[in-house]
C-alpha cells in the first residue's frame, strides 16, 4: 500500500522532475506483466520489472523473505545518479513505514544533481 502511494505521489509531481530534467525509474522484482500494469498506472515514470533479480542482485537491494509467502522483494531504497552515471546520494529508511515524500526527494535532487 505504501509503495503504490509513493509512486502515485511521484507521478503526481512528475512535472517537477521534468522541469529539473530528471527522470524517475521505479524498480521492483515483479514480472513484466505486473510492471506493465504499473506503467499504465504511472505513465510518467519509467517502470522496471526486475523479475530475474539481475539489477537488485548487482546492487544488493534484495530483502530476503519480505514479500507475500516469504518471497524476496526489492528493499525500499532511492538512489540519485547524475548524468555521468555517478551515484550522488543513496537513501534507505530504517523501517518500512518511512518513505520519501516528493518534497524531500526534490530537495535531494536540487542538492545533489543540479
Amino acid at each position, binding site marked *: 500500500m*505504501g*509503495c503504490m*502511494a509513493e*509512486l502515485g*505521489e511521484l507521478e503526481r509531481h512528475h512535472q517537477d522532475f521534468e522541469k529539473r530534467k*530528471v*527522470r*524517475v*525509474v*521505479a*524498480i*521492483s*522484482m*515483479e514480472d*513484466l506483466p*505486473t*510492471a*506493465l*500494469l*504499473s*506503467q499504465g498506472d504511472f505513465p510518467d515514470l519509467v*517502470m*522496471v520489472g*526486475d523479475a*530475474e533479480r*539481475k*539489477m*537488485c542482485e*548487482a*546492487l*544488493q537491494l534484495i*530483502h530476503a523473505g519480505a514479500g*507475500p509467502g516469504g518471497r524476496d*522483494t*526489492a*528493499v*525500499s*531504497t*532511492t*538512489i*540519485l*545518479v*547524475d*548524468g*555521468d*552515471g*555517478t*551515484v*550522488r546520494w543513496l537513501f*534507505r*529508511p*530504517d*523501517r*518500512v*513505514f*518511512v*518513505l520519501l*515524500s516528493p518534497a524531500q526527494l526534490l530537495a535531494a*535532487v536540487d542538492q545533489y*544533481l543540479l
Partner: protein
Amino acid sequence: MEQALTATSRTAKSRGRWWFLLGIGLLLLGIVIFIVQSSLRIWAVPWYAPILATLGVLLAVFSVLQRRSVTRGVGLVLLALLCAGEWHFLIWGSKLPAYSGPVQAGQTIPHFETTLADGRLFTDADLRPGAPGSRPEVNGTVLVFFRGRW
C-alpha cells in the same frame, strides 16, 4: 427485596465493564489513526498504535480486577496478544537492513542489466551519456526501488 437483589447482581456483573470497553476502544483508535495517517500520505512510524494498545491492555487488566469472568479473561488475553503483535512488528518486523552493498556516493553506478516494462533492455550504460538508451538532456536519474504492487 427481590428487585433490590437483582439490581445489586446487575451492578456487580457490570462493574469495570466500561474500563474494558475503553481498553478495546484505545486499541482500535490506534488502528484507525494509522489508517487515517496512511490515507493522508504521512509516512512515519506509528509508535502511537502499540502505546495506545498497551494503555488498552492496562485498562482491561483493571477491569478484570474489578470483576473476574471468563469473557473478560479471554478478552484480556486477545488484547494482550494484539498489543504484543503490534510491538513486535514495529520493533523488529518493520525494520529494514542498513545498506552495505556496492553502491557508493561519488562512485560510478555498478554494472547491471534488467528489463523495462515494455520489454526493452535497461542497463547502467543507459544512465551515462553517449549510450544508445541514454538521453543527453537528462540531468540525472532517480532510481526508486519498491517492494511491489501487493
